């Protein structure tokens, strides 16, 4: 009885808290009375949060990296300074700027850091009072943010800034960040909607979203730090890591021991994320002219759920070479599991003198298509004097960690164990004899027959 009372009291209190959070931010009255002056207003009740935020990857766009080959342990890496063939540039060479006019006389603002949650005058990695005052808190915390105000423009002194919605209307209507909050920036990476990551967080596409879960239900934020997984392509992190197994799922989540036995060697994503999408290849050396007169990197695109992954052993350490960025691991290292990856291939210019991939400033080729002018501009920004550009390809593996399929669309036994299954056992390191056993119908025939009869 006592247990029941305690449970009931807890449930009512919890529901009350949730309702309270959804209904009204306790500071609403203060904001309506005093107006909204950016982070200064937030800090009245949340002191220290601005300083805390500018130490996170959302602001710095970089962090130290300890699981990737050929990086320096004391330096930071990320969108701020990395160069690879999904983007072929970074916040430094592609700092937000006005692109020169094209042959139709049109210009536009473009840059990697156009999603940075500052005002661009205080930019990636900036610190101090001006940086703290420039944080666009409402971008993530308001449910009535007017995104039309968040666009690049030139200040009277010529400095390019990004507008913010600091209206009382936006500030007085705060709420828990939703999928939309995250996807506003993250879906547009790589040159357009669903180009880089190729997944959408909708009920139709993702089993978690179908249960009305939002990004931060898994990426549980701690002091503005966002836990992330171990995508070989995504290096910068806030020091918090995330995996399916832990707070949400156990190592043995199925009601079937035979399936549970797979989890020691097969990552959850392998069966539960059978498809992904987005760009599969790009050519940065020859850009395509668009009808609006601008050029863009020539890109092979797929819609969400149109790309079939490749499968590889991954121990969460990353091979990083000019021609390849991808998973390291093997079936015998005791740490690896088989994971799904989207394979992306990008062509860009390499420096013949060093073998290193050269960056490109997108402003020149955006307006004229002259990609070598983009390389020259980036080299000038970076202080590279000796270079000889030659085209070359790089392969990158992107982890498939989102767009979890509903149970019905998850992979079943025969998807891997039939002779024409999706796993290339030979490539994965199995002998011919082992492959013969792994593709023996005895493994799955009765189980699938039973299922078939149940469904008929």
């Amino acid at each position, binding site marked *: 009885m006592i247990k029941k009372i305690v449970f009931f009291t807890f449930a009512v209190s919890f529901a009350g808290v949730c309702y309270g959070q959804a209904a009204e931010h306790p500071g609403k009255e203060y904001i309506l009375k005093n107006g909204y002056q950016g982070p200064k207003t937030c800090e009245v009740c949340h002191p220290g949060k601005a300083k805390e935020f500018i130490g996170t990857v959302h602001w710095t766009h970089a962090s130290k990296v300890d699981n990737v080959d050929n990086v320096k342990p004391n330096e930071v890496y990320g969108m701020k300074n990395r160069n690879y063939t999904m983007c072929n540039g970074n916040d430094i060479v592609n700092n937000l700027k006005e692109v020169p006019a094209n042959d139709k006389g049109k210009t536009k603002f473009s840059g990697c*850091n156009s999603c940075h949650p500052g005002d661009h005058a205080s930019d990636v990695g900036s610190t101090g009072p001006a940086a703290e005052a420039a944080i666009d808190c409402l971008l993530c915390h308001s449910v009535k943010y007017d*995104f039309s105000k968040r666009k690049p423009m030139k200040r009277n002194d010529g400095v390019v800034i990004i507008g913010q919605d600091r209206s009382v209307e936006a500030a007085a209507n705060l709420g828990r960040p939703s999928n939309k909050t995250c996807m506003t920036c993250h879906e547009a990476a790589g040159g357009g*909607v669903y*180009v880089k990551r190729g997944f959408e967080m*909708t009920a139709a596409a993702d089993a978690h979203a179908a249960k009305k879960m939002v990004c931060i239900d898994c990426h549980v934020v701690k002091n503005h730090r966002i836990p992330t997984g171990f995508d070989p392509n995504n290096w910068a992190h806030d020091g918090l890591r995330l995996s399916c197994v832990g707070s949400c799922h156990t190592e043995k989540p199925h009601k079937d021991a035979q399936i549970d036995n797979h989890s020691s060697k097969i990552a959850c994503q392998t069966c539960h994320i059978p498809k992904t999408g987005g760009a599969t290849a790009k050519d940065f050396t020859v850009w395509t002219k*668009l009808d609006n007169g601008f050029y863009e990197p020539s890109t092979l695109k797929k819609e969400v759920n149109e790309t079939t992954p490749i499968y590889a052993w991954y121990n969460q350490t990353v091979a990083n070479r000019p021609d390849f960025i991808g998973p390291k691991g093997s079936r015998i290292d005791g740490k690896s599991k088989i994971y799904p990856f989207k394979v992306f291939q990008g062509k860009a210019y390499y420096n013949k003198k060093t073998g290193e991939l050269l960056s490109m400033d997108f402003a020149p080729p955006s307006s004229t298509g002259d990609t070598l002018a983009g390389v020259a501009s980036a080299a000038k920004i970076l202080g590279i004097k000796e270079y000889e550009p030659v085209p070359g390809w790089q392969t990158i593996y992107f982890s498939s960690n989102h767009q979890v399929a509903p149970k019905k669309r998850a992979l079943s036994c025969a998807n891997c164990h039939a002779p024409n299954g999706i796993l290339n056992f030979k490539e994965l390191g199995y002998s011919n004899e082992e492959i013969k056993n792994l593709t023996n119908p005895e493994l799955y025939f009765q189980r699938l027959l039973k299922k078939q009869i149940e469904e008929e």
Partner: protein
Amino acid sequence: MKRVLSGVLVAAFMLVSVVMFSQTAQADEGKIVGTISKLVISADKKSATVVLKDIKSGEDLTVLITDDLTLDKFNDKRIVEGDEIRCKYEKDGGKNSSKMFKKTAGC
């Protein structure tokens, strides 16, 4: 001779049918890259009518939007008049119903 003639006629009929069918199928779908010149959200917020000015031809095309994801982007002004859009649509009872509606811009 009759056999040959009827064979030819059957083949010709099949060819015409295939051509007509594929033309119908093609006519039912379209794509456009255009700038939003007008955006009107319905009173119940369950649909929106958008006029896209074709970047190539300069002609206007009216498209009906009903998917929640895009409607939400209209409501909070993530997509506004003046934005350049890549759209795929289906001709549906005299209306052009959007099947894909994305901003061309990215980072």
